[in-house]
């Protein structure tokens, strides 16, 4: 089975570039040169240097003993929360900012949900001295205030998206509209494995460092580079794609992606796209999305601002359709309890997004010899308000 993108920009039935003509020159420019740029020695030298000395990679692969004991298996946490800016998002923004420089772009735009991608983008723009404009849903600006402050401190302009549900989907719309209006000097750093080809492929390539390191680290710690389970949470799906990337062809490794079920899959307040979605076009690619019979996009809901996206990246849609990855739905409550458990047992406060992946451990019938790796995609500092309200802390 082939899980990779083909020369037309498709993963099976999904992907492509469903974009207005206004974006065609930019996307075409990117499509024809991104691989040459990324594979060039001059790019790689700078990229690797920044990952090591600025981001702090490789991120540790930590054997979580107390979680292991609780679940009766050997559990490792891939500590993306220890990256500079506190999440996996920076792996991608570092790559894309160097790319944008090579493309001669002077202005950077990005969308953000939880604010982690916005912070990661503002960070690399400060690093490179480029103008930075971040679109963020009005609702998310309220629930992720510390991240908004971080972006501003690093010189970014944060523009509220006030249309629709005023969350990630709408911020993405606004960023795309900005790009349409500023086609020449601007590069759009998409934060997830979504959007028109080549974005899903490019972002997963930058995030694939997660699974690349995991394999090496797991080998040195266990003598095998292949665990039994690999788990990650999915909104658009970038940390999951990075975590799965080098395991896709290892068919004996079970890949599990945790989606946000919100108040429950059938509650009408959910973001469990793989269950609730149907095939269609969202933000420039053919994928699975939550929509009405008439093709109107349904507003998603999740307690976590990073997972309430009505679609999933096209490669996830493909991996779901061919059943290479198992998609499970985790409710708000399950994710919150998993965050508390991880904090209590390991002294690690994860992001609520990550809590969804941790909660998926509950539903696996582990054998004692099983090894599971979870992508600890981000830290929970940004979610303290939500934790305080939820747990009455």
């Amino acid at each position, binding site marked *: 089975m082939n899980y990779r993108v083909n020369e037309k920009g498709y993963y099976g039935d999904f992907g*492509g*570039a*469903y*974009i*207005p*003509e*206004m974006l*065609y*020159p930019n996307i075409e420019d990117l499509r024809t040169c991104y691989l040459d740029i990324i594979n060039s020695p001059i790019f790689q030298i700078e990229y690797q240097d920044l990952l090591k000395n600025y981001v702090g990679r490789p991120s540790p692969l930590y054997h979580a003993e107390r979680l292991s004991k609780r679940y009766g298996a050997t559990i490792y946490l891939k500590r993306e929360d220890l990256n500079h800016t506190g999440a996996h998002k920076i792996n991608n923004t570092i790559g894309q900012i160097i790319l944008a420089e090579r493309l001669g772009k002077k202005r950077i735009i990005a969308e953000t949900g939880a604010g982690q991608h916005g912070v990661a983008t503002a960070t690399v723009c400060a690093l490179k001295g480029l103008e930075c404009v971040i679109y963020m849903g009005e609702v998310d600006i309220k629930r992720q205030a510390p991240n908004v402050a971080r972006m501003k401190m690093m010189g970014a302009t944060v523009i509220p998206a006030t*249309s*629709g549900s005023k969350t990630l*989907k709408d911020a993405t*719309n606004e960023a*795309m*509209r900005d790009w*349409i*209006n500023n*086609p*020449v000097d601007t590069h759009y750093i998409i934060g997830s494995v979504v959007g028109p080809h080549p974005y899903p492929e490019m972002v997963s390539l930058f995030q694939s460092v997660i699974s690349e390191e995991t394999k090496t680290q797991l080998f040195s710690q266990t003598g095998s580079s292949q665990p039994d389970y690999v788990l990650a949470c999915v909104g658009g799906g970038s940390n999951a794609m990075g975590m799965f990337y080098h395991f896709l062809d290892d068919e004996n490794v079970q890949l599990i992606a945790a989606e946000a079920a919100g108040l429950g899959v059938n509650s009408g307040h959910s973001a469990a796209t793989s269950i609730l979605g*149907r*095939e*269609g*076009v*969202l*933000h*420039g690619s053919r994928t699975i*999305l939550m*929509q009405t*019979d*008439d*093709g*109107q*996009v349904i507003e998603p809901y999740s307690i976590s601002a990073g997972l309430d996206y009505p679609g999933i990246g096209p490669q996830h849609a493909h991996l779901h359709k061919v059943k290479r990855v198992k998609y499970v739905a985790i409710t708000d409550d399950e994710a919150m309890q998993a965050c508390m458990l991880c904090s209590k047992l390991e002294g690690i406060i994860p992001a609520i997004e990550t809590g969804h992946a941790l909660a998926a451990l509950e539903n696996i019938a582990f054998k004692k010899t099983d090894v599971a790796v979870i992508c600890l995609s981000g830290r929970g500092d940004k979610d303290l308000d939500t934790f305080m309200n939820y747990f009455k802390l």
Partner: protein
Amino acid sequence: MNTLQQLFQRKQNNILSVYYTAGYPKLAATLPIAQALELAGADFLEIGFPYSDPLADGPVIQKSSEEAIANGMTLNVLFEQLKSIRPSVKIPILLMGYANPMLQYGVENFCKKAAEVGVDGVIVPDLPLHEYEEFYKPYFEDNGLSNIFLITPQTSEARIRKIDDLSNGFIYMLSSSATTGKSLNTSDDISAYYQRVKNMNLKNKLIIGFGISDNASFVRANQYASGAIVGSAFVKTLAGKHDYLAHIDAFVKGIKEGV
């Protein structure tokens, strides 16, 4: 030959097309607005089928789309309404909207239905050229529908030629790379772009859209193209008025004649 192609045989310049969102400001407004626009002197119509996430549109059409959806507009409702549009409206009619609602309806079904009710063509900004060619072209052709493509100042000459080859109605020439509802770009660069495309002697007529909002911008566009399209400015005229139909005549005359 559909009525759109007939129009271009008959009329070579000062063609005015007006865009509006179906189901806005009232669900039942689709037909009365079409009739009023024809009476007022519009040469053809673009009826928008609303989408929740209109990427190429500015705030005015975003809002009209949102309200139209809230009013209950769907493709099923629209085709039901359009059943009786012919022959009460005789000018060419295009449907304009985004790929996802059309894909959910089924592109083949959509094209059949559109032809059945007397639609001449379709504009879907996010249905790309190669997808159209590879998957959908026969559906449009079998039903005699013109598919209209957009070009911008950044579109390469080779691509414009290709679009010209694939087009059988007109080429929708954007006044700049922009979302709808921005003011007209009047820089020298833009005049050079208009002139450059004009000099290509394309087989299809050029109609300029995006940023046409008054007589001055209409006249200017017609120096380089066969006509122009007004969208946001018209939708704005309908907004918040109970007697919106009463304003249509003055709006159209204002654009065409500056009165």
